[in-house]
């Protein structure tokens, strides 16, 4: 089993990094928050141009077939750069379109013209107002509400398409992608906080020089670094359809969600008052981390799933 990304995978991550670095994602988030989705849709299509949304679309419909490892490394980059929109939901829902007889949408998903969302059983769909089609596992409807994340709204429209089969694998994929987004979010929060600790001075010295600050940052790094192998391990388990895939994904989701959230807490505290400021871009990542921690499996639900896997297996 290979645990290191190969040159092509690293090259793809670098390509996404370059594209997103040049894209001014915070402006895209703020536009979406203000009700203008055009910049988000434009960036979504550019991501599709480099092949991001083809990664969960079958080959016959313009995709590559499901590639969990490439999806995970894409989501880490997307999370790191703060890309808004129902990313995990689009990836997961695109694996269900065949089973619900909506294959006509698949080429559009791959080309970035079609955005999807997906609601878990008893849950909401992320950004149903943005999605061209919403799928639901289970019953229900719910009005549109604003999430803590300013770029995100949740709800469940009446015309959502009911999923009959394949729901477990798709929700697993959504959890895996969300875990990767959370890890990427945490990576950015840590990097930004380290940079701030280098430049912000107090008592005549950069605050990064104080041991208490260093330890706080080191703890976050440890949490992120320890979560990452679980994430890629789960991607490989899903790719190889291992029986442990479900609990592996749960373990990754718990670890990445908690690590991303820990990064947000540390970022907020170490930035001091500025971290609370709406105008400061970092706040966009801080709020995202909280949302991603609970989406597609709260840490405690994921831990229960891991324990159940242990007992069953």
């Amino acid at each position, binding site marked *: 089993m290979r645990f290191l990304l190969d040159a092509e995978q690293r*090259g*793809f991550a670098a*390509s996404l990094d*370059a594209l997103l670095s040049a894209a001014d994602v915070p402006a895209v988030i703020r536009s979406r928050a203000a009700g203008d989705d055009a910049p988000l849709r434009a960036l979504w299509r550019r991501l599709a*141009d*480099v*092949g*991001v949304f083809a*990664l969960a679309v079958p080959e016959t419909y313009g995709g590559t077939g499901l590639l969990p490892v490439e999806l995970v490394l894409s989501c880490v980059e997307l999370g790191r750069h703060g890309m808004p929109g129902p990313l995990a939901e689009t990836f997961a829902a695109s694996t269900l379109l065949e089973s619900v007889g909506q294959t006509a949408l698949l080429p559009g998903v791959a080309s970035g013209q079609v955005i999807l969302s997906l609601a878990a059983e008893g849950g909401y769909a992320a950004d149903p107002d943005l999605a061209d089609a919403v799928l639901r596992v289970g019953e229900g409807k719910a009005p549109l509400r604003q999430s803590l994340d300013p770029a995100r709204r949740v709800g469940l429209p009446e015309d959502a398409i009911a999923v009959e089969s394949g729901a477990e694998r798709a929700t697993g994929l959504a959890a895996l992608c969300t875990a990767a987004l959370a890890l990427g979010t945490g990576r950015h929060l840590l990097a930004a906080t380290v940079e701030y600790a280098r430049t912000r001075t107090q008592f005549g010295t950069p605050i990064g020089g104080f041991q208490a600050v260093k330890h706080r940052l080191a703890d976050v790094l440890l949490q992120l670094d320890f979560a990452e192998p679980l994430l890629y391990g789960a991607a490989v388990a899903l790719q190889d359809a291992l029986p442990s895939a479900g609990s592996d994904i749960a373990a990754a989701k718990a670890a990445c969600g908690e690590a991303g959230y820990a990064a947000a807490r540390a970022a907020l505290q170490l930035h001091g008052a500025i971290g609370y400021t709406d105008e400061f871009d970092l706040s966009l990542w801080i709020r995202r981390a909280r949302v991603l921690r609970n989406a597609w499996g709260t840490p405690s639900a994921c831990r229960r799933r891991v324990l159940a896997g242990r007992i069953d297996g």
Partner: protein
Amino acid sequence: MSLRIVVCVKYVPDATGDRRFADDNTTDRDSVDGLLSELDEYGVEQALKIAEASGDAEVTVLTVGPDDAKDALRKALSMGADKAVHVNDDDIHGTDVIGTSAILAKAIEKTGFDLVVCGMASTDGTMGVIPALLSERLGVPQVTLLSEVGVEGGTVKGRRDGDAATELLEASLPAVVSVTDQSGEARYPSFKGIMAAKKKPVESLDLDDLGIEADEVGLAGAWTAVDSATARPARTAGTIVKDEGEGGKQLAEFLASQKFI
């Protein structure tokens, strides 16, 4: 017959890294990560656009450089170029722009070409004269520093935006063109492009293959010699004007004393 486009690209030290000279006053290519020169990405992009518009074209990327330089070729291939040529020979170390143009010209002739596309300059040497030297060596017209370029029939046409005037230029093929950083954002390699690049051919050539003698190139063959290099002095601390009611005046006096106002 298909349009044969050769794009000259360079593998350069990352400009965001701590670039320095090696002991022999050549560019230190070991201590800093390298990459495909950003300015050459514009050349690759325009070549691919011309190829897409023509529908029947083959884009070859060509570089002269050490082993690592194949990364630059790989990047260009993943953007969509069809094949690559890598001229690599220990004797090339230290070659100046005159020698480099001689090597490139031989390699371009060997590959066969209708159009040669270059960036406006490398981001390390920043000479910017390779297109002109290639035009002389290949005996074909040059149309340089274009911010818009296209091929129609047997003619390459383009627009050069100068400070005082905008020129519309054209030349009959075969020709050499160079494009600026205003020619349009270079595409990002797609997943499919990256996977396809693995299977694209990269031809390796050395000086013998091109019929070039070692003493014509390299440090010894260079027309220019770097005697010494001095690091730019560190920036000195600026003057801080503390506003105690007279801040604006002091600021104006400082600017006047430096002849800014």
